[in-house]
C-alpha cells in the first residue's frame, strides 16, 4: 500500500517537474534576433520590451500564413 502510494506520488511529482521544465523551455524559445547592416546582431528574449512588441506581430504573421 505504502509502496504504491509512493509510486503514484513519484509519478505525479515527475509529471509536474516535467511540465514545468517544458513550459520553461517553451518560454525560452520565444525570441527575436535582429541582424543589422554593420554585422551586429541583437537578440531579444521573451520578456524584454522589444520582444513583447515583436512576438505578437510574429504570431500574427504565422497565423496569416496558415489560415
Amino acid at each position, binding site marked *: 500500500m505504502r509502496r504504491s502510494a509512493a509510486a503514484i506520488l513519484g509519478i505525479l511529482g515527475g509529471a509536474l517537474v516535467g511540465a514545468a521544465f517544458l513550459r520553461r523551455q*517553451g518560454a525560452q*524559445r*520565444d*525570441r*527575436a*534576433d*535582429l*541582424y*543589422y*547592416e*554593420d554585422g*551586429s546582431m*541583437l537578440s*531579444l528574449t521573451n520578456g524584454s520590451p*522589444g520582444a513583447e*512588441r*515583436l*512576438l505578437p*506581430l*510574429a*504570431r*500574427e*504573421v*504565422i497565423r*496569416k*500564413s*496558415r*489560415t
Partner: protein
Amino acid sequence: MLPAMNAQQALADLTEISSQIQAAVVFDEKGKVAGSTLADPGRAGGLARAAAELLAAADQVKPGETALTQLEVATAEGSVFVVRDGKNRIAATTGSNPTVGLVFYDLKSTLRNVKPAPTKRPPTAGRKKTATAAKKQTAARKPPARKKPDAS
C-alpha cells in the same frame, strides 16, 4: 517594380529546395506583393502587410544607428523570417526549430533572383560618362595640336 513572374518562379524554386519553409511572400517597400506561395492573393497581401508591420516594429528597436537587414522571430508555433535588400523584402514562415542559417541563405538567394535587372539607370549614367570621356578626349587632343607649330 519587381517582375512578378520572376518572383513567383523564384518562390517556387525556394519551396522546392527548402522543405523547412511553409509559406513565403515577396513584396516591396510599399507592401505590394510580387509573388507568394499562397494561392489566394488576399491572403498573400495580408501576410505581406503583417510582415511589413513586423519589420517596421523591428526598425523601431534600434532606430537611426544602422539599417536592419534581416530578422528572425522564434515562437513556440514556428519562426518568422524577414530579409530586406533595397526596396525588396521577403518574408517566410517555418515550423519550430528551423536551421536558421540555411533559411536565411535560401531567402537571400531568392531575393537576389527576383531583383530586377539594371535596365534604365546604367545606360543614362553611361551616356554621361561617354560625353565626359569625349570632352576629355577632345581636351587631350588639343595640346598636341598646339605643340605641332612649336615643333616645326
